[in-house]
């Protein structure tokens, strides 16, 4: 099996003596689990197609993603007949905190959590992606509504969206995300000349995830979102509170 690399965010919270393991699903290089209520994803370590998630344990071979291989041995997550040994911790990308707040010429919008959370289909519904993008940028620029939105999400996530998506939202509110997302936020806040290129890389992530993440980032930063049908709904009065 080789050894595993783990996201450092897991280090303090991975259960040492877990009681309950549920395999929630697997698709294209990613398996997601519920370990005593904690959402954990398992990915291949050298997989350029799927960006590294802050929720992940990274394994060496594709065979290690097969759902039937997972189990619990002495309360530890195991693959086949061996507990997973995490030999190294990986620091997930985190946005740079910047004092560059939205300028007066831009109006930053606050998302309507009720309407967005869980809205859409897939492992990470589009509404969740938009929220995640917003949270990461809000964290970067110290948006005044960050705490409020974060609390709202915490309170309602369990009943409205997948365990995995809720965990990603939690990571996002702490500023953690996949590399293309963090790169785009950092490019915007440092007024970089690679911003457009970073946006294009982000949009390529997932099927529609990337585009929704980008829009959420821009909503928080105060970039007007015009004309795009996917966003039009979210821009309406009832979706966004000022």
């Amino acid at each position, binding site marked *: 099996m080789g050894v595993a*690399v783990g996201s450092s965010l897991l280090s303090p919270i991975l259960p040492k003596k877990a009681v309950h393991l549920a395999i929630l699903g697997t698709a294209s290089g990613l398996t997601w689990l519920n370990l005593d209520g904690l959402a954990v994803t398992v990915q291949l*370590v*050298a997989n*350029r197609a799927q960006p*590294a998630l802050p929720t992940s344990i*990274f394994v060496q071979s594709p065979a290690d993603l097969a759902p039937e291989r997972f189990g619990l041995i002495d309360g530890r997550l195991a693959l086949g007949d061996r507990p997973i040994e995490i*030999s*190294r*911790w*990986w*620091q997930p990308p985190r946005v740079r905190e910047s004092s560059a707040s939205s300028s007066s010429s831009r109006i930053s919008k606050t998302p309507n959590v009720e309407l967005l959370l869980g809205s859409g289909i897939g492992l990470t519904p589009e509404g969740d992606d938009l929220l995640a993008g917003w949270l990461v940028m809000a964290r970067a620029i110290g948006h005044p509504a960050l705490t409020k939105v974060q609390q709202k999400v915490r309170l309602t996530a369990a009943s409205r969206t997948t365990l995995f998506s809720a965990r990603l939202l939690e990571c996002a509110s702490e500023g953690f995300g996949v590399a293309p997302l963090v790169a785009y936020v950092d490019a915007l806040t440092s*007024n970089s000349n690679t911003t457009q290129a970073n946006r294009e890389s982000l949009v390529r992530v997932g099927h529609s995830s990337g585009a929704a993440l980008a829009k959420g980032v821009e909503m928080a930063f105060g970039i007007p979102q015009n004309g795009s049908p996917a966003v039009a709904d979210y821009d309406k009065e009832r979706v966004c509170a000022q």
Partner: protein
Amino acid sequence: MTKFQGLLEMEDIKVATAGVPLLADALSDQLVALTRVDWRPAVPGSQAALDRVMADVRRTSANSLALTRMLATGAQLVDVRQASEALNLETRTFLHAGPPLTWENASGPMRGALIGGVIFEGYADNPEAAEKLLASGGIKWEPCHHRNAVGPMAGVVTPSMWMFELLDPSTGNHSWCSLNEGLGKVLRYGAYSDDVIVRLQWMTEVLGPLLKTAVKRRNASAAGPVDVKAILSQMIQMGDEGHNRNRAGTLMLIRDLLPDMIESGASTTDLATATRFIGGNDHFFLNLAMPACKLQTMAARDIPGSSVVTVMARNGTDFGIQVSGTGDKWFTAPADTPVGLFLGSYTEADANPDIGDSAIAETAGIGGFSMAAAPAIVRFVGGSVPDALAATRRMYEITVGENQSFGIPVLEFRGAPTGIDVTRVIRTGILPQINTGMAGRLAGIGQVGAGLVNPPMACFEGAITGLAEASPQVG
């Protein structure tokens, strides 16, 4: 346990890669913390000399010592004296900015300043006679640096001129600089008209002696000598950078000296003229900042094996540098012309090549190196605020250390980049960043603008060769 043994057990190995991207990709695939270094080959033709200097086992500790000595220096204003006395400047001997030069090589502003100096000292009655005297070898001259002095722009010093005298308590070294004449048509820009001479005479007869009395009173008082370094430290945090912007420094100097000037016994008229003169010249403090920087870099001189730059200076024709490990040897090359914004309707055609000893500021880590501390100056030199931050950050690549005495606020009070390392300039291709005033090409025009300039790389190529020759044979 050795450091390498520790590495074998380390959970969070962090790798810096230089070269083939594939190898870095293989590491990021394994989610290893990675810094991809933007490596480039050294300046062509300098590799062999560079390797020899890099192989010199004295270099690291020599540079470390150079930095420590620089950081330990202080700068106190201890006297104001005439050059003839303070620098033993003999009759018909002048000093000038930059490396050695001949009359034939001298540019417009330098010639003008030399002519003005001759007239001021009375060695000739008119400009034509003065020029004849200068061209025929009737006057001797040498760099200010040869006598541990510095001069802005043409930097011409004549025996009668009054000089600020500064002391570094850590080494006992002294350094000197003339008094700043003000802006516009002045000697240092090569002007030599009657009003220039009259002003110089007033400075010699009134300002110099007045300042001397005030300084002496101040030294004897409980407060002790004016701490020029302390003023520099505060200036950097007030939007000045000590080369192109000295306004806060000038104000703090007046605050420090005014009471003693008032009690010096000078007449109210003289006092009023003097304070108006100083207060009306935002660059008055430059002539204290410069010798303070000279004291800092002097302390790092003559350390065998050290590749730290101790002097950067221009004479209007050539740019010259000196390096600690090669002592007083000058490494020179033709100076570039600054690029920036012009006053009035002046253009590039009107600008003289880079001139002045004021690059001693950058040699000491302020001026262009601390541009991030002076956003106001950036626009004046045609840049934007992010450019200023980027310029300072680039300088950390080519310096040995940082000076906590000059903390740059916007960079979380990071110390100014200090101790230019010739090997790093050669390796990275990054040249020291100077921001400077521009003199008019024709004598007497005065300042035509302000802008950014770098020393020519050729100076550093000469320096790395010089250092290689002074280092042990290898290979």
